[in-house]
């Protein structure tokens, strides 16, 4: 009864969490524009979009994993490792597309390993991906010889600096990825099975859904997307560092959680994640523009995440009570 009353009062989207987070993102942008004259410059906006691409791509994989009730702590390290792999292949003069496909395949393979350990052997996602995180980072150092690799072929820059109708292709790729993921999660068997797995895997299995496949798949996607994100990052800075992607997993998890997903699985949306990514990137960007010391940025970001979630919880509590 309550649901129908509310949906009569205003369209469902307005009352949704994604909408509130969109509101928060817009408010944040306005505040930043008011206090910093540099915020609304074309250069800075492109900067924000560039940063959103890397985090945004990783957050898509993280959303799938979290929707199944899991977590992937390894994305940052996997991204770093795959970046090194990509750089080495490029230095070996492999064609750029081939090198990219190999690096992405490498990320997918690592994800497959985690997924199998979690879904088939029933190990805790937190522990498995924690282990993989340590392994991938260590391998990144070993394979790179503890040095950053620069002097990548100039052609790699094309995936960032080409524009279509004035929009950089990496931004187009990001939006297309979100659109495709939104469609997949909402309207396909696979996407709905991901939700069902996170919500109640036992019931999903008993209803004849392929819970094993769709418990593993998110980790594969997460690993592959970490490599894709790193490819864009490499194209921006034109060098691969073994520490690359450090703590990316924390930003990605924060973005997904700000976007309203439940860490218990089954609840969340990809649109919410996109909002979460924008909010995260804008906060970092704004703090940089304001000249806040990098050492204080962690405190600021942490506090903003917690306050956003607390506000959200208070809102849902109130709407549940009345």
């Amino acid at each position, binding site marked *: *009864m*309550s*649901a*129908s*009353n509310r949906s009569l009062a205003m369209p469902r989207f307005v009352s949704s969490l994604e909408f509130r987070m969109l509101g928060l993102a817009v408010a944040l942008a306005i505040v930043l524009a008011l206090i910093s004259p540099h915020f609304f410059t074309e250069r800075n906006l492109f900067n924000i979009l560039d940063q959103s691409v890397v985090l945004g791509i990783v957050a898509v994989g993280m959303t799938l994993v979290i929707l199944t009730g899991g977590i992937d702590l390894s994305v940052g390290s996997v991204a770093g490792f795959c970046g090194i792999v990509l750089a080495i292949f490029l230095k070996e003069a492999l064609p750029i597309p081939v090198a990219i496909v190999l690096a992405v395949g490498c990320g997918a393979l690592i994800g497959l390993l985690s997924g199998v350990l979690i879904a088939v052997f029933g190990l805790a996602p937190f522990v498995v991906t924690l282990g993989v995180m340590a392994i991938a980072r260590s391998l990144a150092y070993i394979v790179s010889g503890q040095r950053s690799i620069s002097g990548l072929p100039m052609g790699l820059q094309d995936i960032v600096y080409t524009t279509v109708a004035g929009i950089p292709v990496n931004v187009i790729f990001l939006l297309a990825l979100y659109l495709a993921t939104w469609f997949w999660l909402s*309207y*396909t*068997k*696979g996407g*709905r*099975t991901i*939700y*069902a797995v*996170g*919500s*109640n895997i*036992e*019931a*999903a*299995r*008993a*209803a*004849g*859904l*392929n819970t094993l496949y769709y418990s593993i798949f998110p980790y594969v996607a997460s690993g592959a997307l970490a490599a894709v994100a790193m490819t864009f990052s490499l194209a921006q800075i034109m060098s691969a560092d073994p520490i690359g992607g450090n703590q990316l997993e924390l930003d990605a998890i924060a973005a997904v959680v700000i976007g309203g997903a439940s860490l218990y699985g*089954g*609840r969340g949306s990809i649109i919410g994640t996109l909002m979460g990514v924008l909010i995260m990137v804008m906060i970092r960007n704004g703090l940089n523009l304001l000249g806040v010391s990098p050492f204080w940025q962690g405190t600021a970001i942490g506090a903003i995440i917690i306050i956003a979630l607390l506000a959200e919880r208070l809102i849902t509590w109130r*709407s*549940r*009570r*009345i």
Partner: protein
Amino acid sequence: MTAENGKTREALLVARDVTRVFGGAYALSDASITLYRNEICGLLGANGAGKSTLSRIICGHLPPSSGELLFRGAPLAVGSAREALRSGIALVAQETNLAPDMSVLENIFLPSYGRPGRLSFGKLRREAQAILGELGHEHVLPLDMEVRRLSAAQRQLVEIAKALALNADLVIFDEPTASLSPTEVERLFEIMARLRDGGKALAFVSHRLEEVFAITDRVTILREGRTVAEDVPTAGLTQTDIIRHMVGRDIGNVYRRPPPAAGADDRPVVLEVTGLSAPPRVRDVSFSVRKGEILGLGGLVGAGRSESAEAIFGLRHRAGGRIAMGGREISPRSPIAAIGAGIGMVAEDRRRQNIIPDMTVGENLFLAQMGRHRGFGRGFAPRRKEAAALIERLGLPADRMDASLLHFSGGMQQKVIIARWLLIEPAVMILDEPTKGVDIGTRQAIYELLREVAERGIAVVVISSDFEELLGLCERIVVMSDGYTIADLPAARLTEESLTLLAAPRSSAERNARLLRELVAAHGGTAFWGLIDGDQLVCLTVAEGDGDASMGLSAGHVHAASDTRIPTALARRAPGLVTEADGRTTLLTRLSNRRGHDLGWIGLSLPPGRTIPDPEALAARMTTMFEQHQSEEIDA
């Protein structure tokens, strides 16, 4: 009862004009109830009437939106479960509130963890054993087992033990019998009566009206959140009165057993299970179900019925046995394979095994269809028309397909889950306790639905601990005990009493069979164990000696006394040897367990010409052998 004896009734808890609003909807509006010492009050109402909400408010699990609660004459701090526990109010919850990773022992004494002071586990263990002993489950519920490994019924027993351990003055039993067998219910009622006579106030929430009549002194009835009858003596009520109060109208006979269709046995067998084993619960299960038939799978909780269903459905590893669908052998290792072979299953625990809580009614409805769909999309579109027809047939609100399934009553949820399977048109549908926690109005609708499903040619297997339901709904009943199928009988030849006897706890069927074989090996002839009910012999186990002609008895079958070779013996049922007209000699000995529970008869029948043993010595041997087996079992 006490009031009628002229004693003054002492009100322990008074709840006046309690209102509770959930997101704009009234779960309770001005409901009232008074609970007196030395009385058991039935709290009745259809699903969604607010019984559970009222119980939870009294126990402090929920704060009321408005209203007054007095306990021992003083206002009760509302909304604090801890405060309620401290004042002496305990709840046996319907959806069990147990910590799944903790042991049975720890769960029973969980409330003590909230009290200051040191815990003595040795003392708790002894107390727990005493409580479980009272419940008759000291051997069935190992104290150190984790609760997550228990079945729904065992969890319910832990929940009851937990409330008893509190020694509270007021205990609310919220559908405690939903997953208990008749014997267990009887035991619970004994305990409840003892608590009442010890000066406690009890509230009993149940959908089973016969139980309400059996145990309550008075009833309070809720309808749509309001009290429509308060504190009415049970003795003056009829079943019809109660139902009229509950639903606001009259309901006809709930059960309409279909007349046995002519040539019913000509229908093809759809599912045939032979020698199924899935240790530890399922040892040797065989049954078959025909097209369009409703088969009941009866027995006690823990007999292995749910586990058998899960093994057939690919949810549980099978150690042996054969499953055939339409004559073709299948070996499903996952529900996907079982569904592919044409099996659908509504599992016992609705919330845990059937519902996807974060999905809408529509998506829950289409879930099995989506799983079966081969393709990229969700596969809803090709079945939309069937779904719309089903929704209308089931009286589901078509405009609320996008609401969360959790907002609906238990009965409505169950209809959606059943519809989920109907949508993919299985050849066999297995339903495990389909009416658990469902009110009488919806129950009737579910029975109607199942009959309709059967008429459409789907074979239906219903697992139920409610024997009245089994007898009313099913054409044929297969009884399970200790993991063995021990009887396969037409429902028309069974009564609730004989079904209870068949399913009654006894030493395992395997040992009894061995005992009979020993008898036959020593004396020859035919040894059998069975129940004698009027002029029928319900045969449970048979052993036949080599070289002697078969008597034609078979285990799990009902034989009319006149059709057997020993009509005189069955009619006399007296100690000593009975010789039939054709010279056959039979000795019958009555068996009972230590609690004096009837366990039927053991018989040895010798063809003419055999050496006749001393009857008294033989009878003594039969009973001692049986007792020996029994004590072995208990020590095990």
